[in-house]
């Protein structure tokens, strides 16, 4: 009984430690905020198993994330740490937490809207311009426009505000 309780609380502590690891490319977010930390469990033999999912297939930060989570857990005294990669279901920007969205905006990055939902069958191609309102994270104006759907990292697009004239990044819906 005592052992079980210890394992439970040790597991909870391990989860808290893993949840606080910053994302290597958006360090204002933790891996939990970004929704890439899919689970932290403690097995019967005391191994901490943390599961991560990549945002994009080519995300160059995955190895870094794995190393960071393992290093922090080891530093907190967990001798046996195992990091698993989870590919299914694929990451969606909908998994960014409300706290994560707030932190993005505070750092000048517009958070994503709801990811597109679609039924089974071919992905439709829309040739008319996508109407999307992205408020400027700096001045709040809704008079903004996309300058490039791709930006410094896979997960972001480039926008600019016509009111305050500042460019800003925007986390894409996916």
């Amino acid at each position, binding site marked *: 009984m005592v052992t079980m309780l210890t394992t439970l609380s040790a597991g909870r502590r391990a989860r808290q430690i893993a949840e606080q690891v910053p994302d290597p490319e958006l360090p204002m977010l933790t891996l939990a905020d970004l929704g890439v930390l899919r689970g932290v469990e403690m097995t019967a033999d005391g191994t901490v198993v943390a599961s991560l999912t990549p945002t994009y297939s080519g995300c160059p930060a995955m190895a870094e994330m794995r190393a960071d989570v393992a290093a922090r857990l080891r530093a907190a005294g967990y001798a046996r740490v195992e990091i698993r990669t989870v590919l299914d279901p694929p990451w969606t920007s909908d998994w960014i937490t409300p706290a994560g969205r707030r932190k993005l905006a505070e750092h000048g990055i517009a958070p994503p809207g709801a990811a597109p939902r679609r039924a089974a069958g071919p992905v439709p191609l*829309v040739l008319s311009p996508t109407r999307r309102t992205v408020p400027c994270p700096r001045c709040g104006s809704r008079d903004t426009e996309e300058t490039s759907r791709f930006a410094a990292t896979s997960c972001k697009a480039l926008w600019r505000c016509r009111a305050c004239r500042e460019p800003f990044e925007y986390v894409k819906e996916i």
Partner: protein
Amino acid sequence: MSDDHVYMTLAEGHEDDARWAYGTGFEDPLHGVDTAVPEGLDRGRLAADCVALADDALVSAQRLAEWTTRAPELEEEVALANIGLDLLGQARLLYSRAGQADGTGRHEDAYAYFRDADDFRNVRLAELPNGDFAFSIVRLLVLSSWRLAQFEELASHPDPVLSAIAAKGVKELAYHRQYAAEWAVRLGDGTAESHRRMRHALEQIAPYVGELFTACDVRDTVVAVLRQVTEAAGLPMPVYRPRPGAGRDGEHTEHLAPLLAELQSVARAHPEAAW
């Protein structure tokens, strides 16, 4: 942690020379994924399918990367590089899966750096030189539409790893196709010069479109997309004038070997090195 220094937190505890996006000897991108291959699945066939899809992606990624410092505008350079990065990521996952499926346990580097042109199974359209921006856009439109249609079907493949790679790739490829389609309309319906170059590009791909559809049966989906885009762009549909040979059989144009020579040069000069 102040707002100005949020990125400084990344430097903490990183005295090592951690590598991110280039070099050799990376950790397996399928690290910690359940790698069991379902009973009854033809492992050789699964490995061959993964290699072919990975080769398409790796060779395309290399061509897209060549646009860096050469694209008409910085935004397009960033876009093309990002698309290449997505494809490179797909290639890495697929090579790793191939090495598990065929039982050799080969690492992604073995496939990317230590095979010759004859061993590559990418379609020839992927390996053709970039040409002008119009050609690269037409090629990207065709290849991304084709790959997206394939990945949609592969998302229900009996191998759980391949199906997961495909389901993830669908989201990325939808962005790639959207980018190419918007440029195709802008250039096709643009100036007389941009229209002429788009028509020329459609002529240039004619010998290489047919082999896409012998490789897999998604012709109707792809044709529907191309019809929609070419109509909006005021361009003719691409015609097929098949040139003998097929990249899926290892028969390539003279352009693949030089591409690979550049891609593989450092890894082959220092085969034991990690950088």
